[in-house]
């Protein structure tokens, strides 16, 4: 179970990104994405931005729930009032996900697959998943508002604060 979380500015520019794994049910809190997933994750998340733009005028909620999925990846989105997108990509078994048509990928390991059935991304539409992601997003939103309240922060500036990064990591540990 691995997560990729990124904050996208109003001009579809990335402001912050972090990878982490689950800390629940024996997870070690470290993302286990394969090498090719590093850029595929960014690609999948940016592809999902089109869907965000489609539904952002018909859905008033800030948490737009699961908006897209590609193979084993599920993308959840939280849209702030200022049109900044929090995108969370979750993958229950990243080592088994094939991104290309070539048969270079190792077969799915049954042990991890069985373990991940109790995890959130195994049922990306379930109530429990949505509640956990909502709680996570709301906590990040709180820190985000504190971050932009900094008088020296200008819109669409990249967030480099290690304190912000720690807070996001803590929220991830708590909910995901």
């Amino acid at each position, binding site marked *: 179970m691995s997560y990729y979380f990124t904050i996208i500015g109003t001009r579809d520019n990335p402001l912050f990104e972090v990878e982490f794994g689950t800390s629940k049910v024996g997870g070690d809190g470290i993302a286990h994405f394969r090498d090719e997933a590093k850029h595929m994750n960014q690609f999948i998340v940016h592809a999902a931005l089109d869907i965000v733009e489609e539904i952002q*005028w018909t859905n008033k909620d800030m948490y737009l729930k699961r908006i897209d999925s590609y193979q084993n990846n599920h993308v959840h989105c939280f849209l702030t*009032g200022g049109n900044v997108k929090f995108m969370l990509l979750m993958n229950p078994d990243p080592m088994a996900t094939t991104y290309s048509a070539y048969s270079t990928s190792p077969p799915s390991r049954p042990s991890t697959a069985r373990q991940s059935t109790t995890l959130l991304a195994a049922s990306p539409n379930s109530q429990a998943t949505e509640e956990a992601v909502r709680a996570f997003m709301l906590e990040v939103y709180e820190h985000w*508002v504190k971050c932009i*309240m900094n008088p020296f922060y200008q819109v669409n500036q990249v967030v480099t604060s290690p304190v*912000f990064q720690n807070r996001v990591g803590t929220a991830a540990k708590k909910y995901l």
Partner: protein
Amino acid sequence: MPAPTTATATATTNNNPPTPLDFKESDTIPLPPPKPFQPSLRHPASRKSIYDRALSRPPSSTSLPAFAHLFNTLITYHHAKSASVSEIEGRLNRAGYPIGIKMLDLLLYRQGGKAVRPTRLLDLLQFVHGVLWRGLFGRAADALEQSTSKREEYMIVDNEPVVNTYISIPKEMSQLNCAAFVAGIIEGVCDASGFGTEGVSAHWGEGDEMWPGKTIFLLRFQEKVVEREEGIKAAGG
């Protein structure tokens, strides 16, 4: 004869593999290696950062004299730098703009879990008229009107803007309304929520005996915003 000498020199250089420092002959200059990232964040003695501060506001926390002093300094600064009334208003507007962008998310956060983004023009106007005004001045604005002649123009009326409480305008600049600062905040809120404007401006509401300081904020939305709004309406959303 200098020319053949130069040619020989170039030929010799071409035969040798180029050394990293030898970039005078070529027209490309190698970029310096990127500096390693060094965090320049400094902590105060208490080790508390902005992330440790609470976002919910104690009721009526800012003192009006303190604000009036700051606002006065702001106007004096921009007055000294501008040549015309419209330039002062433009500068005050730009000073308020980033505040608007930030206020939007702060106010939505304070509404708690039930907060919704303003997605329709009327929602946004009511947000500015009610929530924003209460957040800034502790009361709602006095009126919200739509222009009768142009469909993209809306007006928000404040009978007695708090920001103008201690501002007196000299005779030769009677057109100046320092609530242009508030207009900038409104513009920031509109822009951030995806309703681009052609500009928000503050005008004196003339001829009102009861409220001599009456100010009208004119919001001119972009054509595409109005078109999108009608598109959503037509789709039944």
